[in-house]
């Protein structure tokens, strides 16, 4: 730029004056300003709402699939009856050493088999007492299955491999069952009677992390139950089930390996239920809806930019006379360009602010309606008005250039 050869300071337009002029130009026509901003408002609003709703929904998915569910794998049995004579039930597909095989899978903390004891034998506090078993679940479980349930012991100990191997007549009671059966302390080695046969109570538990069907209930060793009550029916709800507790994040891998680890010869005999994969669900939401809506938001922003560019261009053409006047009052062409650029940027910023507000309200309203916790990521929400500013700035470039090139002569003549 050529250096000034004049004495004294050159023409200038202070920042405050520039902004004041731009706002005045914008607010003079509130109706037109509102319509011009509409595209930006919708675009930014959609952007904030989509990202907010995605985050909110993801948070919901995260909440629904808590840690326990994410580390639980169950497997059912559907044994093949091929080659057996009619009326003869096939044996269970689970091998006898299931506990050990499960424990060898990488990522398994504990695992074992359980089933409801068949035949619903009566439960009583004395050999000839009345059946107190109404509403109590009588389960057979291996020590691994009990460990996978993660019972909270209030007295005694859970099942150990010894009682399983030696088929001990022992029982674990939930605290509700203990109360019902009159068991209050374990130091006198109290017994409960199942089908008239005593089982020594070795432990009382209050809660289980997995398998809430064991509450309220009585658990006896699987080996003892097999000997005294026979095999459970194969498959189905009353059949043998595997319960596995895995380390965090290992559930998917464990679920894939489980059938082969148990029965390399017949992995198809098991129905494995892994926990729903929260990442998969989140990614699904992200890839489908978010992508679509973000594309719509981008289109809205583009339309918004075109709207601002158009309105600003019209304003430049309409205000040719004003441009000429400003030039006659000492404005340099860059001052004129700056004014229109600031006006379009102000429009975009205002649109961005309103859009962000609407987007946030949308997220809050949807979350409130669904009883969700609204999640707004500051990284996506706070810069949103700035996106509006950038849209306005870009949209104003060409009109500002036109304004700067306006010939003050023609502009003043047009009056």
């Amino acid at each position, binding site marked *: *730029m*050529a250096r*000034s*050869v*004049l004495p*004294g*300071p*050159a*023409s*200038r*337009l*202070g920042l*405050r*004056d520039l902004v004041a*002029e731009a706002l*005045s130009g914008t607010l*003079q026509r509130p109706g037109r300003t509102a319509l011009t901003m509409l595209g930006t408002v919708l675009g930014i609003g959609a952007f904030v709402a989509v990202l907010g709703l995605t985050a909110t929904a993801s948070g919901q998915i995260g909440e629904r699939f808590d840690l326990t569910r994410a580390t639980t794998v169950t497997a059912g049995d559907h044994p093949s009856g091929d080659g057996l004579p009619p009326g003869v039930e096939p044996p269970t597909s689970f091998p006898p050493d299931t506990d050990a095989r499960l424990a060898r899978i990488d990522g398994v903390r504990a695992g074992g088999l359980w089933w409801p004891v068949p035949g619903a034998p009566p439960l009583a506090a004395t050999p000839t007492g009345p059946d107190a078993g109404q509403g109590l679940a009588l389960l057979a479980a291996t020590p691994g299955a009990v460990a996978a349930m993660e019972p909270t012991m209030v007295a005694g100990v859970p099942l150990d491999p010894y009682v399983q191997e030696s088929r001990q007549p022992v029982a674990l009671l939930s605290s509700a069952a203990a109360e019902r059966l009159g068991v209050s302390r374990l130091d006198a080695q109290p017994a409960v009677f199942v089908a008239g046969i005593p089982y020594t109570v070795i432990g009382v538990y209050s809660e289980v992390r997995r398998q809430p069907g064991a509450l309220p209930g009585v658990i006896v060793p699987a080996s003892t139950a097999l000997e005294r009550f026979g095999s459970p029916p194969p498959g189905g709800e009353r059949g043998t089930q595997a319960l596995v507790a895995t380390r965090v994040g290992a559930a998917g891998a464990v679920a894939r390996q489980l059938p082969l680890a148990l029965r390399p010869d017949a992995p198809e005999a098991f129905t494995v239920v892994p926990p729903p994969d929260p990442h998969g669900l989140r990614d699904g939401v992200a890839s489908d809806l978010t992508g679509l809506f973000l594309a719509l938001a981008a289109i809205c922003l583009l339309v918004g930019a075109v709207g601002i560019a158009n309105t600003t261009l019209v304003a430049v053409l309409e205000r040719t*006379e*004003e441009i*000429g*006047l*400003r*030039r*006659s*009052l*000492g*404005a*340099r*062409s860059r*001052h004129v360009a700056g004014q229109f650029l600031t006006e379009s940027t102000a429009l975009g910023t205002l649109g961005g602010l309103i859009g962000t507000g609407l987007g946030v309200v949308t997220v809050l309203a949807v979350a409130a309606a669904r009883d969700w916790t609204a999640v707004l990521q500051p990284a996506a929400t706070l810069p949103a008005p700035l996106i509006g500013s950038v849209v306005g700035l870009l949209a104003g470039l060409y009109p500002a250039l036109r304004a700067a090139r306006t010939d*003050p*002569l023609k502009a*003043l*003549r047009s*009056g």
Partner: protein
Amino acid sequence: MTAPTSATATGSGPGGGPLVIRLAGVGRTFAGPPPVTALHPSDLEIRRGEYVAVTGPSGSGKSTLLHLLGLLDTPSTGSYELDGIDTAGLGDRDRSTLRGQRIGFVFQSFHLLAHRTAEENVLLAQLYNRTPRARRRAAAREALARVGLAHRTRALPGTLSGGERQRVAIARALVNGPSLLLCDEPTGNLDSANAEAVLTRFDDLHAQGHTLVVITHDPAVAARAERSVRIGDGRLREPGRPAVDG
């Protein structure tokens, strides 16, 4: 300066005042085809405090002269000094600065911003010339008071009569204390009563020592000036002086 000096104005002006305008061989040709000479090379000197009318029919080159004097256009030939500053070769920045600080424009069609009050329209003139914000409002009110509009500072142009609007425009032109008031057909859009009011303001401003150049096709307006310059077919002539030809 080697330009012809035959038409230098010293006679009718108030003698020894410093030169505000000095045109030496200034001409303007618009590129063709065919090229049009809107103003043949001309000389003109105007001293501080003079009240000069430039008259001529439409198409005579009046507007070209106005734009050259107002630094809105650059001459094809010759040199133009404003307040002793040679404007040849000045860039947009310096020309804008000179316009904003030393020239007050008054237009035929007022050029007021319709959405702003009289005071805000006057404030606009102080936007680009570094007037401290705190002083602007007082200066604008004072300028409006000088054109007799102290009571209408908050009026929008739409509620003002034509004469009042032109007085707001004059206040806007005055507010920065310019060296030169450049008026382009200032009464062209006014009825005779309003025109008379504006011309009376010009008389007052002249009496206060302002330098006025009024471009008009109206002999009655020109008659109010103390000195008249005619322009016809792009040639500047001053009655009683030899014609200036390029």
